[in-house]
Structures are given as structure tokens and as C-alpha cells.
């Protein structure tokens, strides 16, 4: 038996097939491997304020202790703990992929659950690769103000060829953010999009749409520096209400428009025929996972110890989330006569998206208000898009697009100097910040919606964006993936 087992690895004919596929996969990569090892192109910069330093505990360094050396050691500790926090936050944000997969699977029909899961899995996978190859450079490379032009194919080595751990931590953190923007789209396009076409779009958003957008407001975090950072009153979007969520949301809007509604979503008389999801427990678990992930998303965006400000950000994040939950529940209850679980779950996400921009700059009380308003907006937005016949199975456009815009705007209203930055309109700061926020919101809408529209139309008229009617009826799981999500009956296979 044992030798039989080992034969797996040596069976020539199998290996030949496998080798072929590998060659197809890795052509370019392997070719560049050696060059790349010798030539660490990227010039990397640790954040200015942190002096690189020897490991404080290294005894081998026989240099005498001085006040300066000790102080440097402290700087090193602070720096490394900042890396640790950035990484842990990135892990939490990574886990949001599971949250998205569950929310989207739960809110759609079981005949499309495999497809939804595959889309979430693949957009993260493909996105991780393409953001590493291209996106990161476009977003954070040295820039002309509109997109970066260096730092592609991140090696993580500094100019001396030594590993630069800050770059690694930052790359990881930014990768999971990019994947978030990408994955938002899948929910709005659920239950009717061709798998291959979705993969193509995923590449487009992680290679083009998101990185360019991101460079405008966040490029300065690394080697870049975008035009929105250089306004007189710089744009506030601490963790990405607009940069991540609205970009994803507006792309989702473009996708939903180009696709059209699911068959059966609208009755002959034009009224909405609701298509319910297949599992509220999965959806709810997804929301809890997203919520957990958001504690990495927002507080983690300090990407350093930063005087412990992550604690404050965590509090504002949570208060907005619960505010969104409560107000969406109440709004739905008043309007439709019952406490609707799907709206309450959307409300949580609405609150979270809303606070993502201003989380660093507002008080707990303000954050609760921002969440409360976000929850209400979300419910009205969901209903409006339904009325406009833009079919968004999971409410992604409302939650991420619209509430992302609201959150970004709210920074111009509720920001307080005491937390760093300027005062917003409600705190005597006038309209300067508000105007910047509006400029940002509009610019991002134009870019993200516009570019995505072009891409989706291009896909539509080439490889096609939507499955056939029969495939839609039978479900994408069996027609695209040859597999049911629940192949066996749930309760009885025994006797």
C-alpha cells in the first residue's frame, strides 16, 4: 500500500499532465523569480517618525548602552508592536471575506449558494495576487497625483536587499482592504452573473478601479500622495467609507444596472416580488463576522499604537453599528409593521459603513447619531432601489454605496478638533471640511461608477455578463459548478 501511495508522486503520466498545467500557470512568475531575487527594485520607506533600530534584546551587540540607544530600542518596540497590531487587524479584516460569503449566501437562494461562495473565494484569491502584482503600485507608488507608477510586484525588500517588515504588514493590510472592495460587488450581482465574467471583473477592480481611487486619498500612506490628500482641507476618510465601501458600492450599482433584475423579481404589474434568501442563520452569522472584522478595519487603520486611539475608534465603531441596527429595525417596524431581521442585519452593516470614514474624528455620541441616521438611510435606500428596478439581492448598493457616502459626509458635520483634524459644521468648523467631503464623494462616484459601467458593458458585449434564462432558473450551482450546495437531504439519509 505504501509504495502504491508513493507512486502518486512518481506516476509519470500524471505528473506530465500536472506539469503542463503548472507551466501554464507559472510561466511568467518563474521566469522573473531569479531577477527579482537579485534586484529588489522597490525603494521602501518606513513611516518617518519611527527610527529603525537594533533589537532591544539582542545581547550580541556589544555596543555600550546610551540614552540614545535605549531610546532607539523603545522606538523599535513601538514600531514592531505597531506592525503586530496592523497584522492582527488585517487578519480580522481577512475574516470579513467569510462574513461576506455567508451574508450573501444567506440572503440568496440555495440554488446559487455554491456560486456565491466561489465568487467570494475567488475574488479574494485573484484579488490578492493582482493587487500584489499591480494594484499596490498603482495605489501606493510614487504618484502623479492620480495614480502610482512604482512598487509593482512587491518584493518587500528595501534598497539594501533586506526584508522590510513594514512593507509586508502594509501590503497585507491593504490587500485585505482591496479584496473587501472587490467582494462587495458580488452580492449585488448575485444569482445571475456568469462566473467567468465575474472573475474578469474582479481582476479589473483590483487592478484598476480600486487602486486608482485609493491613490487619491491614501497614496500618501506609503510612497504616493493623491490630490485629495493635498487639498487645503484634506479629505477625511479614515478607514474607507468612500475609498473602500462606496467604491465597491458604486461598482455594484453599475453591475446591477448592466445586468438587470433577476427573473421573477418584478411582477407583471411592476410591483416587487420579493425573493427571499435561504438561510437567515447563515446571514446573521455573516453579519457578526463582518462586525468582528470591522474591529480590525477601523481601529486597525491606525496601523500603529498611536497613543491607544484604536480604543476610541473601536468605541465609535461599535456605537454606530448598534445605532444602525436599532434605527433600521425601528424604521422597518414603523414602515412595514414588523421587526424585519434582514433590515436589522443590513442596519448593522449600514452603521459600520457609515462610521468607517469619521470613526477617528468624532465623539461616541456623534458616532451613535451617525449610525442611527445610517440605519434609516439604508432602509429607505433599499426600498428606493427596489422601486427603481435595480435588483440588489443583498442590499450592497445601499449599505456600501449610499451609507458610505453618508458616512463620508458625516465627517464634515460631526468631526471635532479634539480628536485630531478640524471641526465639522456642527462643531463650529464651518463648511470647509464639508465641501471637501462632498468633492470626494462626487469624485469617487464618478470614477467608480463610470469606470465600472464601462468595464461591465465591455464584458457584456464580449464574453457576456449574464447567464441564460434556463441557467438562472435551474440555478448557477448546478449549471456553472455542477454541484448543489446541499447535495443531500438535511434530515434523513438513514433508516
Amino acid at each position, binding site marked *: 500500500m505504501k509504495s502504491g501511495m508513493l507512486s502518486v508522486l512518481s506516476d509519470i503520466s500524471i505528473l506530465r499532465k500536472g506539469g503542463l498545467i503548472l507551466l501554464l500557470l507559472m510561466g511568467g512568475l518563474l521566469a522573473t523569480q531569479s531577477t527579482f531575487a537579485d534586484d529588489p527594485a522597490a525603494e521602501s520607506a518606513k513611516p518617518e517618525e519611527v527610527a529603525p533600530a537594533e533589537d532591544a534584546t539582542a545581547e550580541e551587540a556589544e555596543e555600550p548602552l546610551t540614552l540614545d540607544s535605549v531610546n532607539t530600542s523603545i522606538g523599535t518596540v513601538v514600531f514592531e508592536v505597531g506592525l503586530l497590531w496592523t497584522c492582527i487587524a488585517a487578519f480580522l479584516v481577512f475574516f470579513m471575506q467569510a462574513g461576506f460569503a455567508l451574508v450573501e449566501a444567506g440572503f440568496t437562494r440555495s440554488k446559487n449558494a455554491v456560486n456565491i461562495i466561489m465568487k467570494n473565494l475567488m475574488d479574494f484569491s485573484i484579488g490578492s495576487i493582482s493587487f500584489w502584482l499591480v494594484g499596490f503600485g498603482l495605489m501606493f507608488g510614487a504618484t502623479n497625483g492620480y495614480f502610482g507608477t512604482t512598487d509593482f510586484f512587491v518584493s518587500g525588500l528595501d534598497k539594501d536587499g533586506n526584508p522590510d517588515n513594514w512593507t509586508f504588514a502594509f501590503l497585507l493590510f491593504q490587500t485585505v482592504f482591496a479584496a473587501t472592495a472587490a467582494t462587495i460587488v458580488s452580492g449585488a450581482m448575485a444569482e445571475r452573473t456568469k462566473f467567468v465574467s465575474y472573475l474578469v471583473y474582479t481582476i479589473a477592480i483590483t487592478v484598476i478601479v480600486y487602486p486608482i481611487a485609493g491613490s487619491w486619498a491614501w497614496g500618501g500612506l506609503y510612497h504616493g500622495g493623491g490630490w485629495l490628500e493635498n487639498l487645503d482641507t484634506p479629505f477625511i476618510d479614515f478607514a474607507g467609507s468612500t475609498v473602500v465601501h462606496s467604491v465597491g458600492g458604486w461598482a455594484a450599482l453599475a453591475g446591477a444596472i448592466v445586468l438587470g433584475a433577476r427573473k421573477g423579481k418584478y411582477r407583471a404589474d411592476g*410591483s416587487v416580488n*420579493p425573493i427571499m434568501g435561504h438561510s437567515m442563520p447563515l446571514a446573521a452569522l455573516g453579519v457578526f463576522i463582518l462586525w468582528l472584522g470591522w474591529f480590525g478595519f477601523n481601529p486597525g487603520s491606525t496601523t500603529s499604537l498611536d497613543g491607544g486611539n484604536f480604543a476610541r475608534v473601536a468605541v465609535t465603531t461599535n456605537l454606530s453599528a448598534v445605532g444602525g441596527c436599532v434605527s433600521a429595525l425601528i424604521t*422597518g417596524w414603523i*414602515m*412595514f409593521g414588523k421587526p*424585519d431581521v*434582514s433590515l436589522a442585519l443590513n442596519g448593522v452593516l449600514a452603521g459600520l459603513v457609515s462610521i468607517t470614514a469619521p470613526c477617528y474624528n468624532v465623539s461616541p455620541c456623534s458616532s451613535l447619531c451617525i449610525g442611527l441616521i445610517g440605519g434609516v438611510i439604508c432602509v429607505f435606500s433599499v426600498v428606493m432601489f*427596489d422601486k427603481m428596478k435595480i435588483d440588489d439581492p443583498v*442590499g450592497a448598493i445601499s449599505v456600501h454605496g449610499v451609507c458610505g457616502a453618508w458616512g463620508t459626509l458625516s465627517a464634515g458635520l460631526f468631526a471635532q478638533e479634539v480628536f485630531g483634524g478640524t471641526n465639522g459644521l456642527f462643531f463650529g468648523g464651518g463648511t470647509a471640511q464639508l465641501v471637501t467631503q462632498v468633492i470626494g464623494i462626487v469624485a469617487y462616484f464618478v470614477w467608480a461608477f463610470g469606470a465600472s459601467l464601462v468595464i461591465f458593458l465591455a464584458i457584456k458585449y464580449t464574453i457576456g455578463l449574464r447567464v441564460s434564462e434556463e441557467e438562472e432558473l435551474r440555478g448557477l450551482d448546478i449549471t456553472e459548478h455542477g454541484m448543489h450546495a446541499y447535495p443531500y437531504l438535511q434530515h434523513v439519509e438513514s433508516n
Partner: protein
Amino acid sequence: MKKIEAIIRHFKLEDVKAALVAASIEGMTVAEVRGFGRQKGHKETYRGAEYIVDFMPKVKLEIVLSDDIVDKAIQVIQESARTGNIGDGKIFVSKIDEVIRIRTGESGEEAI
């Protein structure tokens, strides 16, 4: 021999079963079904859109029995399944030509 098919409410299943067993009817087969009838279902909203739940979850009982206890069975079911509200369900009776017990190969009345 006859077959009784009874469409009843879910939460009446235990009562009906107990009543049938009490009447010495000890074989039956049950299936989950969804029924459409006078009980028109109710209007619900989901995310603000209205819809009508017109297929109500029901349980279908199938009982094959000899002709002489059919009336008794019908009476027992009707009494134990009744709530008096619309949606209580229906009983259908039809003829069965033959019954075979798979285990033994017995057939006819003795196989029931």
C-alpha cells in the same frame, strides 16, 4: 381495501397519530407538503415588498386499511385534527387493489 389521504396541520400530527393508534390503526406514512386552499395564506412584507404566502405548510397522512374500519378512521382523524379554523385540511378516500408486505411477501388484508 382503502387508502385514506389526510391533509392536516403540522401541530396536529401527534394528536392524530395518538388517536389512530388508540383506534388500533398502527400503520401510516407521513409526508411534508404545502397546501393551497381556502386558507388563503397571509400577506407578508420582506424588505418593504409585499407578497402572499399562499402555500401553507401541511402534513399529509396516508393510511391503507381494510374497508370495515375506514369510517372509524375518518371519524377519528376528523375529530383529532379539527381546530375549527380555515386550513384544517381534508380527507380523501380511494380504493387500493392490492397490498404486499415486502418483508414477508404476504398480501391482501393480512399485509396491512
